[in-house]
């Protein structure tokens, strides 16, 4: 069995008796602490295969639980509950319900690749974190994280025009995540920039906002990329046992109702 740097005992399953005397010996307080047993029955035996079917998760089977990834992890240093090694373990044994307890922090991975650098088995844990985030969203366990929305806004613009323009991305991202653009620190940044930037550059940046940069002759690349991404996403949904969106759309278009 691998060694855990994290306890599998849930705090709510630790029971302590304020007053307890057993065979004439006072075992009140933490002397009488015991762990309420629990039975896990909802193993998902396909979990590892599902994660491996998503981009980044391909090498999860190689993990030997050394813990180097968690030890090196940037986010773990800030939030000890962020634990790549532990999540990989849960996936490998199929403990889906345990994994779901951490569903709201998995997306926090900052892709610094310290884990991938440290991993002796080429698991590429950074990729596994991305696969886990995708899996959680595809299965409907979490809403789209702000991070995923940002990736979508960004990638959509690259695929659409070949290039991005930062101002547009920020605007769209704030709109889609329902945040106000008037954040105090953004305004302060703008203020400091405006004070210092030459007028010529400001005009250039302003113009980039109006005539967003694009790559010439991009139409065929755009079509090829869109087609590829749609195919891949369908394949992933099928691998997770979800309805194929392309098939679904085709059926709807053909007027066949869901039976």
């Amino acid at each position, binding site marked *: 069995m691998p060694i855990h740097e994290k306890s599998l005992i849930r705090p709510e399953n630790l029971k302590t008796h304020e007053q307890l005397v057993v065979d004439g010996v006072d075992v009140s307080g933490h002397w009488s602490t015991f762990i309420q047993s629990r039975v896990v029955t909802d193993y998902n035996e396909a979990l590892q295969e599902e994660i491996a079917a998503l981009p980044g998760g391909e090498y999860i089977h190689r993990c030997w639980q050394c813990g180097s990834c968690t030890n090196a992890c940037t986010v773990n240093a800030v939030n000890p509950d962020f634990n790549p090694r532990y999540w990989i373990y849960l996936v490998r044994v199929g403990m889906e319900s345990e994994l779901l307890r951490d569903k709201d922090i998995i997306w926090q991975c*900052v892709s610094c690749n310290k884990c991938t650098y440290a991993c002796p088995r080429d698991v590429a844990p950074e*990729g596994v974190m991305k696969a886990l985030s995708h899996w959680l969203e595809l299965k409907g366990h979490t809403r789209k994280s702000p991070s995923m929305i940002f990736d979508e806004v960004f990638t959509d613009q690259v695929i659409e025009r070949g290039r*991005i323009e930062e101002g547009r991305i920020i605007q769209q991202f704030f709109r889609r995540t329902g945040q106000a653009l008037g954040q105090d620190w953004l305004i302060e940044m703008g203020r400091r920039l405006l004070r210092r930037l030459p007028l010529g550059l400001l005009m250039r940046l302003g113009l980039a906002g109006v005539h967003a940069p694009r790559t010439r002759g991009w139409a065929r690349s755009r079509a090829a990329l869109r087609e590829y991404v749609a195919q891949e996403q369908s394949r992933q949904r099928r691998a997770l046992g979800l309805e194929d969106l392309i098939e679904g759309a085709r059926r709807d278009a053909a007027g066949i109702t869901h039976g």
Partner: protein
Amino acid sequence: MSKSKADKYRKVAYYPGCALEGTGHAYDRSTRQVGKALGLDLVEVPNWNCCGAMEAKNIDPKVQTYLSSRIMSITANKMGMDVVMAPCNGCYHNLKKAEYDLAHDPKSAEVVGQLAGKAGETAYQAGQVESIHALEWIKSAIGEEGLRERIRGGLKGLRVANYYGCMYTRPRHIFPEKDAGPGSESTAKPHFMDDLLAAAGAQNVEFALKTACCGGAHTLSDSDMSTRLVLNILQAAEAAGAEVIATECPTCHSGLEMHQVRAEKRFGKKTQVKIVYFTQLLGIALGLSPRKVGLHENVSDGLAALKRRGAA
């Protein structure tokens, strides 16, 4: 290989990337100016596209592979060149990653071949082009000796913390030329920027967070995390005695600038250390004016620190 690296890098294809057209404009400007002052030739990759940064790979990794391979294909097949230089860590990393994947993963090569075919382009073949970072470019084409000969004024002992960020060294396997014996770059303790700035007259401080992460991937989507990570870096640099943090990536640079302001506004933590591109520092050491290297475009105002030292 017949040509030496110094000759090979004298004239290279230049891939500025999207960030250098926007927030990283001063980096583009100072890179071009320093190249010119050093007698190096940059030929911009015509009609380039974005490499997908850290985002496209999260939608699908092979989208990013295609995007970067298109740059290398133009370099080889349209420009007839065999070295492409990127000053942005993101662009550089993605070029190296595409090169690695195309050489080692048949599936990647197949998908890129199909995408390029449908787009009516010549698919890039692994090995056609060498992708380098601006640091490797100057370090190999000019070197410390060459730089020392050309310094006019120099940095006058300015205390600098060299910050390389994540993507310049991680993950190790996409950088086969690093950790390859004497003279090569180190992935654990990179030093190319330190070497160049020392030759330009800076005093580099011992800085443990050279390759720490600034949380750039979530700069807007998890801003508190990014601010905490950046604040760590800024405070460590100050504790090491740095007046300036030298950067070599537009994303790292704007991340540090942005969250320095945010740490002040949101957490009430003010730091004094200034953030300056290494090319701006080199330019000034070479005798270029602060305006020429775009120092006035930085949010973090490094001019006073340079003036205090008599370097600008």
